[in-house]
């Protein structure tokens, strides 16, 4: 098979993965402000999209390994071929779409890692995967992230409700705009980088780019646009799960949960203990549900999300392993992979049409209003 053709396919799939990454993660930042009415659904996704776009251009350092050290890449390890990356991306995309269909907030990075692990296990044997790194980077953080964020969010919720009186709590909506914007910006700088890394490393592996050089400008721009478009299209199903289904979120809770999310993500990315944004955000929402008196957490929904996290990695790994087996048969297999992936994407899209969830599902008494100015005016007239 012509090398440029497979590289072109990898780039196309990587950009599509970036798109799914965007709409999968809109909820992390924007589920609670939409739920409390701090931002109208349309404004929220537009804001998140712009911040992701800006964030993608701000990120300077692109991942040095495709798998983040999970697979022993490079010298003395396995060579991850473009065909394996292609199979891994197919696994990640399909799993991202399946979890979206069920409205589950699952980590896009885990889907990508799972896909690459599955593809590599087929291509180079299971020994190519670093088990210790897997435990330290994926499994244990997946338990710690929601616990940490949940605890902090719980405390912050208690503080917010302890200090303020009921009639003052609408003011938290203003704060929510800032906290959720920070989450979006952080997401843009982190997640677009992953796709840039995958594309750049594939270009290098195929000999189209100098080893050790950074991403080309068109790669940065394409990734930024893909993630922003994905974010703008809004994963409404996941927003609904996170903002509505786990617990009913009030403005004070939204502010407390997002502060916890922002603080945890920033601390984890700067103090050397990486945590998944999706898991942190979900943990924060659960924590704030426990923290408000009279609020209840729907543990059944929380449990479904937890199961989603557990199977994300193996599931996308299995899909990718199947794709890698097919790709190993030669150029025809690679083409068959892409056709099958397109068919799967189309099927999931068609199934999703049966039960539409979109921005109209988020009824807000006064969309986009911080307070209720009309009522105040009337009072003044009197």
């Amino acid at each position, binding site marked *: 098979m012509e090398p440029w053709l497979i590289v072109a396919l990898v780039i196309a799939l990587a950009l599509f993965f970036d798109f799914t990454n965007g709409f999968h993660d809109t909820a992390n930042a924007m589920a609670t402000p939409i739920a409390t009415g701090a931002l109208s659904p349309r404004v929220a996704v537009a804001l998140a999209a712009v911040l992701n776009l800006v964030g993608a251009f*701000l*990120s300077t*350092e692109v991942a040095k390994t495709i798998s983040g050290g999970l697979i022993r890449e490079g010298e003395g390890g396995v060579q991850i071929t473009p065909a394996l990356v292609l199979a891994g991306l197919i696994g990640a995309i399909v799993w991202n779409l399946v979890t979206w269909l069920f409205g589950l907030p699952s980590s896009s990075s885990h889907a990508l890692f799972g896909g690459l692990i599955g593809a590599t296990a087929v291509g180079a044997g299971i020994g190519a995967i670093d088990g210790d790194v897997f435990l330290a980077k994926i499994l244990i953080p997946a338990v710690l992230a929601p616990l940490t964020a949940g605890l902090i969010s719980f405390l912050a919720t208690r503080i917010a409700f302890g200090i303020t009186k009921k009639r*003052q709590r609408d003011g938290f909506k203003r704060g929510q705009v*800032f906290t959720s914007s920070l989450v979006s910006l952080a997401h843009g700088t982190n997640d677009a980088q992953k796709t840039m890394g995958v594309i750049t490393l594939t270009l290098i592996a195929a000999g189209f780019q100098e080893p050790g050089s950074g991403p080309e400008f068109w790669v940065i721009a394409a990734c930024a646009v893909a993630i922003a478009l994905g974010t703008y299209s809004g994963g409404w199903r996941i927003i609904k799960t996170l903002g509505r289904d786990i617990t009913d979120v009030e403005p004070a809770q939204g502010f407390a949960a997002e502060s*916890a999310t922002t603080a*945890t993500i920033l*601390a*984890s990315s700067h103090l*050397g203990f990486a945590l998944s944004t999706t898991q942190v955000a979900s943990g924060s929402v659960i924590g704030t549900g426990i923290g408000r008196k009279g609020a209840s957490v729907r543990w059944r929904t929380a449990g479904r999300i937890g199961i989603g996290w557990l199977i994300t990695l193996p599931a996308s790994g299995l899909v990718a392993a199947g794709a890698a087996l097919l790709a190993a048969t030669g150029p025809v297999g690679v083409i068959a992979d892409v056709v099958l992936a397109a068919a799967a994407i189309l099927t999931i899209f068609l199934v999703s049409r049966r039960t539409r969830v979109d921005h109209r599902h988020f009824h807000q008494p006064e969309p986009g209003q911080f307070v209720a100015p009309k009522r105040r005016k009337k009072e003044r007239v009197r």
Partner: protein
Amino acid sequence: MIDWMSFVIVVVASMIAACGVVTLFSLGLRLADGTEPWRRPVAVVLFGLCAVAVAAGIYLIVPALHGG
């Protein structure tokens, strides 16, 4: 294998940051609501401190600002 020390640091740092910001903002909201003349300026100062926290967040997010 697992760097528990850095995990504890992450927990403590994010707890202080999140609870600190929420405390400042909540106090600001509480003080902004009232008639005494001293309340409003104090609330403005508290909100200002929250703005500083947001600026610190942006500083940490944008790699060009912290030289990484």
